[in-house]
């Protein structure tokens, strides 16, 4: 389990905290969605959950990040990779840029850890299989589609064997096909036991893969509950979150004042 306990975070040189008193738990096998307006703190929360803030970013952290019952504070960045992986929107900056093949790219993390070669190979093979990109193993990562590159980036994280994955708008730069590829991959990874936090604007995507959704507002968690409830919460628009298409339709139908029978017809068609 990954837990944030009363976490607050202020960026270096910033006047105000970006996160206030955040309490969040990610259970194994759970996919949790993170929504909120731009600049509400989604990226910051992802950086804190992965330990990059404050280690890589500087800044001040209050509260605790607990990874599987252990306080993450004494852990160095290179030790965190085996516990929690973080993926960003731009696949290009996440790829090392020095790997001629997808295989080498995915093996990059385990190689850095200095594990025995057989171990590195085993982990790489497992990660390629988990993301179903075995057939891309010999390809040059620079020549893959955006969606494929994201899968390679995620495989690179998975190869380190973390129990938790944090993804900050992983499909932002992808087309619908690429988005679907990443969504499917996340579902499979959760089924394998990983706990996953994924920040997204695309609530339809989250509706399809998340058991729980958390809504951030100005650095605080405002709503935390089952996906179906949170994504249907009437407060989402004022929080700057676009509700899933079905919800928007239902709400608009009610607002327009359609008769109950028609609403029932609509409901049936939406099912």
């Amino acid at each position, binding site marked *: 389990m990954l837990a944030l306990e009363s976490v607050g975070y202020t960026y270096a040189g910033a006047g105000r905290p970006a996160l206030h008193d955040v309490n969040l738990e990610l259970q194994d096998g759970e996919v949790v969605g993170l929504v909120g307006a731009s600049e509400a703190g989604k990226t910051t929360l992802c950086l804190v959950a992965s330990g990059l803030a404050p280690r890589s970013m500087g800044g001040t952290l209050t509260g605790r990040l607990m990874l599987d019952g252990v306080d993450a504070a004494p852990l160095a960045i290179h030790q965190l990779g085996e516990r929690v992986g973080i993926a960003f929107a731009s696949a290009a900056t996440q790829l090392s840029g020095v790997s001629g093949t997808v295989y080498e790219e995915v093996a990059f993390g385990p190689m850095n850890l200095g594990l025995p070669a057989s171990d590195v190979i085993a982990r790489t093979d497992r990660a390629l299989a988990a993301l179903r990109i075995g057939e891309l193993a010999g390809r040059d990562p620079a020549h893959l589609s955006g969606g494929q590159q994201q899968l390679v980036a995620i495989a690179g994280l998975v190869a380190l064997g973390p129990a938790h994955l944090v993804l900050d708008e992983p499909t932002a730069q992808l*087309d619908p096909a690429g988005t679907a590829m990443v969504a499917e991959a996340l579902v499979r990874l959760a089924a394998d036991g990983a706990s996953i936090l994924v920040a997204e604007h695309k609530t339809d995507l989250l509706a399809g893969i998340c058991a729980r959704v958390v809504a951030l507002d100005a650095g605080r968690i405002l709503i935390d509950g089952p996906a179906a409830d949170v994504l249907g919460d009437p407060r989402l628009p004022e929080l700057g*979150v676009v509700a899933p298409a079905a919800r928007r339709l239902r709400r608009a139908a009610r607002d327009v004042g359609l008769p109950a029978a028609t609403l029932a017809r609509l409901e049936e068609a939406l099912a």
Partner: protein
Amino acid sequence: MPGLALEAVGHVYPGGVRALDGVDLRIELGERVALVGQNGSGKTTLVRHLNGLLRPTSGRVLHDEADVASATVARLARSVGLVFQDPDRQIFAGSVRAEVEFGPRNLGLGGAELAAAVDAALIAVGLAAEARTNPYDLGASRRKLLALASVLAMRTPVLVLDEPTTGQDLRGVATVRRVIDEAHAAGRTVIAVTHDMDFAASAFDRVVVMREGRIILDGPPASVFAESAWDVLRSTYLEPPLAATIGARLGLGATPTDAALLAALAGAA
């Protein structure tokens, strides 16, 4: 410069990749056109032909029936303003205001006229209060709106937006929609490359679908997202908006937007 036209335009990149294959497209002044398709379908390549950044390797590009082959990009920038997808590939100024001034200055605006154009653009995207802020003190989504403002201020008759709603929250998307509507009301042509089918169906009069360098569908949202076109859409991994699917399921005809679906439901009730 009322209309834009691509006549049998083909574009082969130096490496041999054929990005556009015989594209015929006419866009009249004042139209709102959404350009959709998978990455690699040729959408970005196509819009870069509109302002001369790319030249066709075969065929012609016309502005108001005149071939623009000999016109420089700087000159075409007076007619076609193109907003790139990544704002960080253009932002260089130390303040929001200075950034927005760049485009219109290049076009020769100065003094009061320049100030007016910049003010209007900043108000349109909601950044008027941040005029003196350093662009990098804004979040990524507001920088995207800044990039939009910097091209809006150029007051070009044609406005081309590359993925304007990607990475935007509700307010950002609403701002983009408002900008498009205001531009349309002012008689400008708006063309947007987008992956968002709901946005394409509701904010535009015409949707052009591309696959592998060719246009495979071209028409109003009602026809492009009608059930008869779904096979074609799905052949390029695109899904029609939910409203269209529900409308078809309920036998209400073509309902590409929520509004159309609700109107059809009300009518049928």
